[in-house]
């Protein structure tokens, strides 16, 4: 690709969400809008190298895409969505509908932000599965190609292409409107949007291999979306809470893996490698979430926990009582066995292993985390700290049998051996 072409592709990527949003409104169908936006890119690749880049590239692309989109509709007779779309076009043009047309126009002139939000609410509609939402968000809002999305999710291109087609069909069938929910509807729909961004970030963040550059790119895209949503909905505490959480998590990125790619646990990370700018941004967003009355939101609480770690220059300086209290509040608003397990760990540092053990044993009594190796790992650790090596060895052995990670299994077997050596050393 020539430098000129790559620059045009960049402009298109930056403009694509607004372009697709405006076209979805006009054409009444996300799939048609995407096709028309692609056509506009082709037109730009043809015209710009010859005539120079227009002063307002976004407006140029929109005009080109509209032309292509309306052409397409005119030529595609028979398709059912054709009638819907044509109907809309006719409505807009009808002189009898002057006030509505004016409303449509003013809507069309709404900022870039509103369009991004509408598109985000549409692609994160509850009618779609989480995996469809993520693929669509990446395609439509981040401008990733199907091939790039496939690589990011470690799937084949055909699978992702199919998923995208199905998602767009589902949106059309469910007649999901292109609108920004207001008032209580906004509050009701926002969690799905935030959750999709959160999942997107986690897809990239928890990548074990890190061999593919697109996995970290998922974190970057999620962070950008979170920043965008927080800027566009500044009064929504959980939007600030999610942003705070992601900034604080991303701040640790450089410290999370060794040079050879092996993961480094929080306790062992070189905290001098944490990104202070992102930490500051995270703390500022958390403060905003709290000012907006959102201190007890699930994202704000997770951010508060991350902030607790970020504030400690060394692991030993961690304010564990505060973190344990945050976990307790998180458990109240968003109960899950994993949260309880994490709370137990925090309690063990805040109050001692004896206080934490009953929490872990209560979890063991349920089957919720029966296959989760960290549960017996934590139990074994607590038992070892309480001077009960025989029971600890049993727990570590079980944990070793549950993990699929060979390196982790080896570490756990080592702890089994240490505990057994201690048992042998203690006279009975």
């Amino acid at each position, binding site marked *: 690709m020539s430098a000129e072409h*790559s*620059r045009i592709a*960049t*402009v298109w*990527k*930056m403009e694509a969400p607004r372009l697709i949003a405006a076209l979805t409104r006009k054409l009444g169908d996300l799939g048609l809008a995407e096709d028309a936006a692609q056509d506009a890119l082709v037109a730009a690749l043809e015209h710009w190298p010859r005539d120079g880049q227009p002063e307002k590239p976004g407006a140029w692309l929109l005009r080109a895409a509209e032309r292509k989109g309306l052409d397409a509709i005119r030529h595609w007779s028979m398709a059912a969505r054709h009638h819907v779309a044509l109907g809309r076009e006719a409505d807009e043009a009808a002189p009898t509908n002057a006030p509505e047309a004016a409303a449509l126009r003013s809507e069309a002139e709404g*900022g*870039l*932000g509103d369009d*991004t939000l509408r598109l985000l609410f549409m692609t994160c509609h509850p009618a779609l599965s989480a995996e469809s939402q993520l693929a669509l968000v990446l395609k439509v809002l981040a401008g990733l190609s199907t091939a790039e999305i496939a690589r990011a999710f470690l799937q084949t291109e055909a699978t992702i292409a199919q998923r995208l087609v199905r998602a767009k069909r589902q949106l059309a069938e469910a007649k999901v409107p292109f609108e920004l929910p207001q008032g209580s509807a906004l509050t009701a729909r926002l969690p799905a949007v935030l959750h999709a961004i959160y999942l997107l970030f986690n897809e990239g963040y928890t990548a074990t291999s890190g061999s593919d550059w697109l996995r970290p*790119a998922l974190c*970057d895209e999620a*962070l*950008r*979306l*979170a*920043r*965008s949503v927080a*800027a*566009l909905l500044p009064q929504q505490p959980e939007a600030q809470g999610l942003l705070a959480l992601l900034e604080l998590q991303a701040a640790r990125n*450089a410290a999370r893996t060794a*040079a050879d790619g092996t993961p480094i646990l929080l306790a062992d990370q*070189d905290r*001098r*490698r*944490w*990104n*202070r*700018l992102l*930490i*500051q*941004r995270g*703390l500022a967003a958390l403060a905003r979430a709290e000012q907006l009355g959102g201190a007890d939101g699930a994202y704000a609480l997770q951010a508060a926990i991350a902030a607790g770690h*970020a*504030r400690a*220059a060394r692991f030993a300086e961690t304010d564990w009582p505060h973190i344990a209290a945050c976990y307790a509040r998180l458990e109240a608003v968003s109960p899950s066995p994993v949260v309880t397990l994490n709370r137990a760990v925090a309690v063990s540092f805040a109050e001692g292993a004896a206080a934490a053990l009953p929490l872990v044993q209560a979890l063991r009594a349920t089957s919720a985390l029966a296959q989760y190796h960290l549960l017996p790992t934590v139990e074994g650790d607590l038992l070892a700290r309480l001077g009960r090596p025989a029971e600890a060895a049993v727990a570590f052995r079980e944990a070793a049998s549950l993990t699929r990670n060979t390196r982790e299994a080896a570490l756990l077997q080592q702890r089994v051996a240490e505990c057994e050596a201690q048992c042998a050393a203690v006279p009975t």
Partner: protein
Amino acid sequence: MRFMLLMIPKSYETAGPELDLPLDRVAEMMQFNESLQQAGVLLYCEGLHPPATGARVHFKSKVPTVTDGPFAEAKELLGGFWMIDVRSREEAIEWARRCPASDDEMIEVRRVQEMDDYTPEVQQLTAGFETMQGKKP
């Protein structure tokens, strides 16, 4: 990728010590800042006082000597900067193109060094670097 957009106003080569901020220009710049923020790419931005109130420290023969501003003969003086996080160099340049700058202004686009850009030896030496990039919260 992080980039700095470095704003270099020609007027700063001759500006006096007073900060000259016409309201309409500030409003335009704030709009640009907002578009960066709403696109989720803005990390940080600052504006600088005129060089007339600054100083330059030179190290000829390793001996520091101080020159007070304004700096006669000096060209391309910094007026402020944005730090943005974008997907590519092209995108950084495209954002710079969208700045409502006046015709005596120029924006230099420069990539910010990341830990990953360093050799293991440099990474070892710069382990404390990030703590220097902001106050401990």
